[in-house]
């Protein structure tokens, strides 16, 4: 279990964070497809914090909710208050190449892959929770 583990919010640490999250995910998920999908989600959320929040630290938790058979991730940062779920852009996956915008793919992926996402602000920190039931 990862319990509010503190990492410097730096690009150089991203791989280490993803490795530690991946180790947790692999305790519960065996299907490579889902392990990969959850890694994609974690990378997107962490990359956004590192690139845009201005926070110097990020806190990562990952625990398993037995009753719900669900893996829960929590990402906390101390940067500018921002709810990424509020302004999630629509992504038209049927759009042709010329019409396809560059942005919006990351949040599209994690809102598609995760079963539930919650944001709240507490003590001036951003908390993003992501839930995925075992498949």
């Amino acid at each position, binding site marked *: 279990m990862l319990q509010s583990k503190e990492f410097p919010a730096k*690009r*150089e640490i*991203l*791989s280490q964070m993803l490795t530690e999250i991946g180790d947790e995910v692999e305790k519960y998920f065996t299907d*490579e*497809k889902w392990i*990969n*999908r959850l*890694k*994609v989600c974690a*990378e*997107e959320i962490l*990359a956004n914090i*590192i*690139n845009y929040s201005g926070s110097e630290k990020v806190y990562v938790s990952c625990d398993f909710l037995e009753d719900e058979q669900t893996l829960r991730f929590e990402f906390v940062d101390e940067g500018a208050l921002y709810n990424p779920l509020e302004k999630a852009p629509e*992504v*038209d*996956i*049927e*759009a*042709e*190449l*010329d019409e*396809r915008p*560059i*942005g919006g*793919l*990351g949040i*599209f*992926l994690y809102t*598609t*892959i995760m079963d539930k996402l919650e944001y709240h602000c507490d003590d001036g920190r951003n908390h993003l929770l992501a839930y995925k039931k075992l498949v």
Partner: protein
Amino acid sequence: MTVTIERDDDLKIIALVGELKATNADSVRDEVISLIDKKPMIISMEKCIYVSSAGLRALLMIAKTAKMRKVEIVYAAATKEVTDVLEMTGFIRMIKCVATVAEAEKLGIRK
């Protein structure tokens, strides 16, 4: 991730090897775009084991640049996990993706 040129005659084959992710997507994008000339290009994904959303943006920019320069580009031999992400985001329909490099070579030569 490393970007290697595997063939460069009437057709260019570029192989992406490793993980295409937030920390390297911009440099991989720039490197591949710098290799686009007039020849049809195959991007071999056979040894690309991971593509994140930043990686998808790089693949999208490469495809858009190639189209703008009127260069045929084909993504070939993506792994199962990478194909899953390409499918989820509609990339598989939007950009030309084929199952093997050999299949892509036929397309390129036909052009």
